[in-house]
């Protein structure tokens, strides 16, 4: 696959742009993608690489450090002007899709929000069969999400996000085997919980032997969370805050994402590691999506494929610490390979979209616990 064309791309773009504009006026560009620029939509691409693409790309990607690197690398490689708008919560981009997107080309979205977006017809279908990098996505990751519906694929996995139990390696001789460590009275004042109704209630569900997606006893979940409260130092609500609690060694155990644990350990020098307790640990995936209304959908498709190439995916792990959606073992140092390998006996539970009832009950429980 030749990425660089041997003749002036801008000249080609100018020439073909005029033809495309004429075609657009004539109503010859089908697809109904809602693109404001009269551009083609991803499913119009039948051969790789796309022959023409625009010279701009507007991303929303919350892996800030990686996005900064990718902007330059992808921009230089394809002669594209790339911008990135970070976000801290998915509702920031979702509300813009609700309002009728005309700006965002590519989003690093989270599973549940992707599903909501698909249901509301906010996303372009992707021609994964012709995208070379689709082959890089491992089979188990392809299956671990709900971004494929009715035979159509609407996203490409960017990273797997594990919600493990993070612990201080100086304090524990070995990885704690149970979430019960977060109910250990001898650790009073040295443990924390995530101020997130879903995550915290799901941990309590696993601790009490229930299905975190569809629990059977909500009262028990509330009860154990109330029992836990006096033992905690705090409920952390910001990823940086959660990480700093470990870096400053204010706490010795608590839920933290894999990526933040990686940063705490390798960038901040904190004595931490993570594990999936025997009751299980939740994980979700972040995915590249191309929203309808994207002004540069083909460039976005090109970027999505580029980001799923192994060296570029490996860069995501090395800067952010999250396990990419593609197999990058061959690209990593031994230290990183060890950190990113999840033992086969870990009981990992995919964080499926909760039913309205469960989500509502979790929210009520969490409010009651915090108000207790």
């Amino acid at each position, binding site marked *: 696959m030749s990425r660089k064309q041997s003749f002036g791309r801008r000249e080609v773009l100018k020439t073909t742009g005029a033809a495309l504009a004429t075609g657009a006026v004539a109503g010859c560009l089908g697809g109904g993608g809602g693109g404001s620029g009269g551009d083609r939509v991803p499913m119009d691409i039948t051969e790789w690489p796309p022959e023409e693409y625009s010279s701009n790309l507007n991303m929303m990607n919350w892996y800030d450090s990686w996005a900064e690197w990718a902007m330059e690398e992808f921009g230089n490689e394809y002669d594209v002007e790339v911008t990135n708008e970070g976000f801290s*919560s998915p*509702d920031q981009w979702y509300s813009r899709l609700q309002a009728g997107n005309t700006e965002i080309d590519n989003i690093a979205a989270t599973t549940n929000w992707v599903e*909501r977006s698909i249901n509301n017809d906010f996303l372009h279908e992707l021609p994964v069969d012709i995208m070379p990098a689709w082959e890089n996505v491992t089979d188990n990751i392809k299956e671990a999400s709900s971004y494929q519906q009715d035979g159509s694929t609407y996203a490409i996995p960017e990273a797997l996000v594990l919600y493990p139990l993070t612990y201080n390696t100086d304090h524990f001789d070995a990885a704690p085997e149970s979430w019960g460590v977060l109910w250990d009275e001898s650790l009073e004042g040295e443990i924390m919980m995530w*101020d*997130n*109704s*879903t995550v915290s209630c799901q941990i309590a569900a696993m601790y009490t032997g229930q299905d975190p997606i569809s629990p059977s006893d909500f009262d028990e979940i509330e009860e154990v969370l109330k029992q836990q*409260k*006096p033992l*905690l*130092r*705090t*409920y952390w*609500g*910001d990823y*940086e*805050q959660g990480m*700093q609690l470990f870096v*400053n060694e*204010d706490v010795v155990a608590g839920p933290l994402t894999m990526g933040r644990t990686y940063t705490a350990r390798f960038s901040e020098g904190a004595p931490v590691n993570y594990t999936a307790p025997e009751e299980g640990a939740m994980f979700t995936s972040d995915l590249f999506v191309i929203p309808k209304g994207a002004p540069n959908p083909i460039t976005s498709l090109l970027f999505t494929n580029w980001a799923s190439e192994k060296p570029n995916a490996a860069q995501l792990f090395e800067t952010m610490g999250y396990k990419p959606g593609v197999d990058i073992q061959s690209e990593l140092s031994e230290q990183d390979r060890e950190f990113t390998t999840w033992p086969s006996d870990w009981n990992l539970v995919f964080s499926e979209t909760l039913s*309205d009832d469960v*989500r*509502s009950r*979790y*929210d*009520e429980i*969490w*409010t*009651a616990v*915090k*108000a207790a």
Partner: protein
Amino acid sequence: MGTETETRAPSGESTLLTDLTDFFRTRPRLKKLAIAGPPYGVLIGFFLLPLVAMLVISFQEGQINGPWTLANYTNFLGSQTYLTVVWRTLVITVQVTVLVTVVGYTLAYSIVRFSRRATLLLLLVILPFWTSYIIRMYAWINILQSGGVLDSTLQLFSLPSVGLLYTQPAVMIGFTYVWLPLAVLPFYASLTNMDADLIEAAKDLGAGPIKTFFTVTLPMTKNGVITGVILVFIPTFGSFITPRLLGGTNNIMIGMVIENQFKSAFNWPFGAAIGIVISVVVVLLLVAGARGGGNLFGSSGGERT
């Protein structure tokens, strides 16, 4: 008229201005509309319409465009859990407001009465606003955490560490720091406008410093105090970042519950309903407070005439 315009206005631009002035002079209603229209437009577009939208959403079930229902209001008002959170929020807000008012008034009074560098001191008060709210909170985390700046300073004097972070005092410190400039500015303005001769007159008539303060200074600056209280009370009531970053496990506020409805529970109508109820509560409290404040300060007014 054309001849007069040419005489008064040497340039084409001035002629246009003069014509425009004459145009509005003969149309007073249009003139009022031109002056008052833009601010009303902003208020309608950016305040009233969003408020109406929120009100509409609050009567929908589960999601935007869902069926109409009153359940969001009955669930909230009928839940002891949520009412407990509202009460706790109210207590924290009143504590913060009192603390900020006392500290802010003292600061403003000192600047007005005892300082020759009022402008510089006011600039220092406002200075924190030039830095992001989140960054300021993280700065406080560094100061208050175990082994942080505060603890290190105490150790220099052989004092024990306090480790205030994730406690109620940490939340109070954070709030006081953040809202202090909002309170100091109206306090300063009202104190500056007060006639200092009245204080001298009170002293001449035998009033001590405390009696002078409560019978002259405070009533004369009533409007500034009420403005400062409002500016502190409202944002504190809806706050969620400060208690989340600095507080422990017992600092839940209603703003955090509302945020959770939008970000985690995905129940926007319920979040909107809570927001509407809280807005009504805050307005009622402020009206009651303003009226109570008026009685408290007596009938001496407060306006300099």
